[in-house]
């Protein structure tokens, strides 16, 4: 569990009509984003002293970010292909005395990283599917079908937000150990690892709010045309909700990849464990250079994922989703 909770991706509620949906490539102009000025005015930026100061501060910040945020990852990339002795003797050396690409292969094959990698992929995929199904069907019922009692139900879902998941660790573990009604034991099964992720009130609320903003006329028109609940869901609502499905998916996959405490508890069998859980155990018995290669491999996929979907992660900060 990281110190600060994930930033809440405040998804732009829906465009008024599907035609107005923002196309991926389209960039809004600066003026659109209310960016005609920042804290400093155009006039101030032209003053030589302010200009110098701004260059220093902005440039300094960029250097700081590169060193502090990117630095450890670059260091990891370098040290993953550096022989152990080299890293130990001169950890800050810029150039290694000889590259050891073999480390990556040793990590992948010999310490069986591939197994834990695929375990992580399976758990992330299952977690994604569960969260998706629950959030979308739940949001659809609560927002559009609205059966009797749905307000109470929504309140019950939201109430779980008050209970942090880590606090439920022990009762959840005992529940999974002996499932109600069926008495199956989901400990050491991937189902036990990813099904609980579906109980995310945050996702349900996010999707419901998105559905609340869908144009009612389209839904009413579909109803008049004789659409039943299933067809309305499949042919009308789902195609219109791609933006929110993207957001939920991206955050679900990344969260599953980062998760530690729940898989630690529910998957005691090393052959089932994901990277997060297995790496700390491997660290005690693996040579340093191979271990660093394993760490590098373990964070390549999340980094690549982030670079591909960066707009979803950073959108709020760049375009201003929190409207005053």
């Amino acid at each position, binding site marked *: 569990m*990281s110190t600060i909770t994930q930033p809440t991706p405040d998804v732009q509620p829906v465009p008024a009509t599907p035609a107005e949906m923002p196309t991926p490539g389209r960039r809004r102009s600066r003026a659109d984003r209310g960016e005609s000025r920042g804290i400093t005015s155009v006039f101030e930026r032209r003053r030589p002293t302010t200009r110098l100061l701004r260059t220093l501060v902005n440039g300094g910040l960029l250097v700081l970010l590169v060193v502090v945020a990117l630095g450890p990852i670059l260091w990891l990339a370098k040290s993953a292909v550096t022989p152990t002795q080299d890293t130990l003797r001169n950890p*800050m050396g810029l150039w290694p005395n000889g590259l050891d690409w073999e480390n990556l292969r040793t990590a992948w094959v010999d310490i069986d990283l591939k197994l834990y990698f695929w375990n992580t992929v399976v758990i992330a995929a299952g977690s994604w599917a569960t969260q998706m199904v629950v959030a979308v069907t739940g949001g659809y019922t609560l927002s559009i079908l609205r059966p009797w009692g749905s307000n109470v139900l929504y309140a019950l879902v939201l109430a779980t937000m008050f209970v942090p998941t880590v606090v439920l660790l022990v009762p959840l573990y005992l529940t999974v150990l002996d499932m109600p009604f069926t008495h199956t034991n989901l400990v050491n099964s991937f189902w036990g690892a990813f099904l609980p992720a579906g109980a995310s009130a945050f996702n349900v609320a996010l999707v419901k709010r998105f559905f609340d903003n869908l144009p009612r006329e389209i839904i009413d028109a579909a109803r008049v045309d004789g659409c039943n609940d299933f067809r309305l869901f499949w042919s009308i609502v789902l195609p219109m909700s791609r933006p929110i499905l993207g957001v939920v998916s991206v955050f679900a996959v990344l969260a599953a990849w980062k998760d530690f405490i729940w898989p630690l508890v529910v998957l005691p069998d090393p052959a089932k464990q994901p990277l997060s859980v297995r790496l700390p155990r491997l660290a005690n018995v693996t040579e340093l250079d191979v271990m660093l290669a394993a760490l590098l491999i373990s964070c390549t996929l999340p980094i690549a994922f982030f670079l591909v979907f960066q707009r979803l992660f950073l959108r709020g900060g760049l375009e201003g989703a929190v409207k005053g």
Partner: protein
Amino acid sequence: MTVTAPAPRPTRRRSLVDRLPRRLRNAVGPVVFLIPMLVVFGLFSWWPIVRSFIMSVQQTNLVTPAEFVGLDNFRAVLEDPLLGTAVQNTLWFAVLALVIGYPVPLALAVIMSDVRRARGLYALLAYLPVVIPPAVAVLLWKFFYDAEPTGVFNTILGWVGLGPVPWLEDPSWAMPALVMEATWAAAGGTVIIYLAALVTVRPELYDAAEVDGAGIWAKVWHVTLPQVRGIMLITLILQIIGTAQVFLEPYLFTDGGPDNATLTVLLLVYKYAFQNTTGGDYGKATALSLMLAAALAVLSLIYFRVTRRWSD
């Protein structure tokens, strides 16, 4: 070319649902669509919540049937000398995280909001540590925190004539070391939240401040910060809620050591339940979880009140 009569519109095959009697047809949709949510929330959220209340007043060891013991679990937890240590350490972690971690994202975001070119690059870099799996980050930092003079951080400190610092091996250095890593890992997310608020500050406010003769500092102090006061309060509460549940860092860096200097409340819960030599003490673990949950619920309540006020 022969003109053919337009093909007769295929009569739409009526689906199974449409052939049901009307009353049933209206009910079948909501019922089917509710199943996933009811099952998943029921099994993995509502039932464990109810169960934690039941278990906190029971003696459970999974072998013999659970036995009602009243408030004994709570009493046992409160009498545990480690509880005081764990609470103190958690508070210390929270305080350090506030001192070290709280101002950093705000300062970064304020500067970044005034960057004209390549702000995306700044945001990308700031957010990058957030996507690194925490276990990977901790293992990497654990190596950086090597107490030898040749450790990564001690080498850097050596360049400016400081150190070596014993980092994780010293009870008074261990917690700050954990907080620094946690700040590195989490600051980017908060930066994005602040940035979202900062780019929507209305330009007229800055224009007006300039008319009144405000310099850059005065604008930051009297316009920028007051405009994001609400978000600052939200991130403050979120951070406190997050730090109260800190587990991964103390578990992986030091496993509560040295000398219990980094034993946090949640780590104690984990140790009661899963690292007990005499078998899991699930009753004590849930009792302590509930006490933590009660404290957090108060904070969450404040959080929801605040966010609701700001979203109206």
